[in-house]
């Protein structure tokens, strides 16, 4: 940090490196380590084959989009465990309504977005008006959606999406896949809302200390409900991307991807506190990319599926521990 003295007042100029979320150093370390391992033990394709690098990004799209929404609720000291089933709901509804007809695409997108907003609204209302702990509330709504989906669509085909819809998953604008454009757009919008709007400032205030927020005249309930609607909407976008990749939706696409717990994990790794009030979407992006890099490296090295799960668990713990260990606050 450099200091400058103007008229006897010490002005501290923030070091630019201090603005980079800590997690990016971790991302760099993981990437270098991964590339080294790949060079030594595998065919070294990560560096030489650009397709693999691009696939790291594409693989991160769904998780990245959900994690942006999760970042919003977690900054507000809440949590959203219903995202996995919101993703499934979107995937099933999309392929069910569209039935392979490209003309229905805009209508479907509007319907699923409205449904997502409704799920978020319910989450937010249950948490703020019924005073139900967010963990239980969103777990409950997730169970409700899961039950309805599994009960209604347990068997049989559920339609499929048209070729034009699959473009979102497979095609791109020149060399850049549409999916990555979508992820970047969601990130930028999220970053803009958090850093440059009144709503963003209110969300940080509510997450930091809801009582002080309320006493300073914020409508804390509305702020939190808004965050939950944003979270559900990102889950819908992720669901749309997933169904465009798969071609048809099933009730288990969300829970199979563990999007609920992984979005929480990546957000925490990205530096957003579970207790709220701190964090941002770019930290979360790094968390998501770390997962993407690790997955790719494991695939390159041919690591056993179950061993992968073990290593993933260890990495989640160690990544969070690497900076939580220095905190003076007691964790719980």
């Amino acid at each position, binding site marked *: 940090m450099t200091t400058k003295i103007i008229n006897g007042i010490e002005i501290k100029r923030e070091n630019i490196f201090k603005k980079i979320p800590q997690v990016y150093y971790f991302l760099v370390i993981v990437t270098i380590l991964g590339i080294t391992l790949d060079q030594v033990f595998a065919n070294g394709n990560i560096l030489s084959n650009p397709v693999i690098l691009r696939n790291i990004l594409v693989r991160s799209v769904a998780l990245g989009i959900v994690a942006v929404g999760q970042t919003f609720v977690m900054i507000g000291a809440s949590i959203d465990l219903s995202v996995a089933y919101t993703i499934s709901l979107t995937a099933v509804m999309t392929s069910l309504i569209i039935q392979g007809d490209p003309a229905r695409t805009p209508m479907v997108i509007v319907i699923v977005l409205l449904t997502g907003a409704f799920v978020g609204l319910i989450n937010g209302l249950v948490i703020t008006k019924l*005073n139900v702990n967010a963990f239980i509330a969103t777990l409950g709504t997730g169970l409700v959606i899961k039950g309805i989906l599994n009960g209604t669509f347990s068997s049989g085909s559920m339609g499929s999406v048209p070729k034009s819809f699959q473009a979102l998953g497979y095609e791109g604008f020149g060399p850049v896949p549409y999916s990555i454009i979508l992820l970047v757009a969601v990130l930028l919008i999220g970053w803009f809302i958090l850093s440059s709007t009144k709503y963003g400032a209110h969300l940080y205030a509510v997450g930091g200390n809801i009582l002080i927020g309320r006493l300073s005249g914020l409508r804390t309930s509305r702020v939190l409900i808004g965050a939950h609607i944003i979270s559900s909407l990102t889950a819908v976008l992720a669901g749309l991307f997933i169904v465009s990749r798969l071609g048809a939706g099933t009730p288990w696409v969300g829970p199979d991807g563990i999007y609920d717990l992984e979005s929480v994990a990546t957000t925490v790794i990205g530096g957003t506190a579970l207790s709220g009030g701190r964090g941002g979407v770019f930290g979360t992006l790094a968390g998501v990319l770390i997962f993407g890099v690790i997955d790719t490296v494991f695939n390159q090295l041919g690591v*056993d599926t179950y061993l992968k799960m073990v*290593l993933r668990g260890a990495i989640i713990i160690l990544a969070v521990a690497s900076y939580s260990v220095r905190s003076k606050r007691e964790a719980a």
Partner: protein
Amino acid sequence: MSIQVEKPTSTSMLDLLANIWAWVRKIPPVYPIFLLVAIGVSQLNPNFATVNGIMAFIRRAAPLVILAMGQLFVLASGGFDLSQGSVVTLTIIGSALIMHNHEEYTYLAIAIMLGFGILIGLVTGFVVAYLKVPSLIATLGMLLLVKGGGLYWTGGAPKGYLSEAYRFIGRGYIDNVPLIGRFPVSGIVLLVVATILIILFHKTNLGKQILAIGDNAQAAKLSGIKVRQIRMIAFMISAITAIIAGILVGGYGGSSYTAGEGYEMQSVSAAVIGGVLLLGGKGSVYDVAFGGLTLEAMVSLLNLLGLPKPYRDAVQGLIIIGAVAYAGLRTKKRD
């Protein structure tokens, strides 16, 4: 004096009623809810209210009740244990692998699994207490570690069978018990575990210290409580109860590597129905045990109502939200 004794009876009646009302209001909501659900179940299925029906119900509910009581120790200290379900699965597939169809290895397998439980609890507790990783993340990591480790160990599919002696613990009955006829072995396990946990939580300092940590960890630390050690003990208790529940689940349902799925969420829900405050500071083993029984009875009720399994999930979700909302409204009024 005789004049004071002869108060107008109406006043004393009112006093009495007021006293009863004050006493009734103090009853945790889980007991009337349990009563209502139990009445509902026995209306639909008269078998439920018989001694046999109750014994069968205890046998079925024992694993969840044990898990919920273990979860209480972590919840009351302000944390979560999301690794319970995967520990249940590990217990089942691990025991089957150790026994490898040898009847005589039954107790060896149980001893080894209990050792695993202590180890898992120690690691989780260390990560939370010393590395200061929030328990939601720490136990999620442990979930992946334990599940992946178990599957890697067994090569992805359950190997070997659980011996008869082992399965007897989870599904067997002791016959010719005076008065009630037969009593499930898992009920005995439940009673033993419950007694130990009740003593630990309500009769020793441990419980008070856990509640103090859950209420305000900083204040607890300043008043001389060894916060880190107590947290580790809480996670160890939770993991050991998960191993015991795993033995019962394996006995009741046999070897499968999805056996433990969802138990962590169910045990948190059962504890919350039992009046535990998430993020710590409040809880009772008795109430949580009834929370577990209530949740299990609700599942039976939905079953009897003829709802297909998936819709039962949905209704269960609504019930959990409703129970917590109700508990929340009550505490809010009291403030």
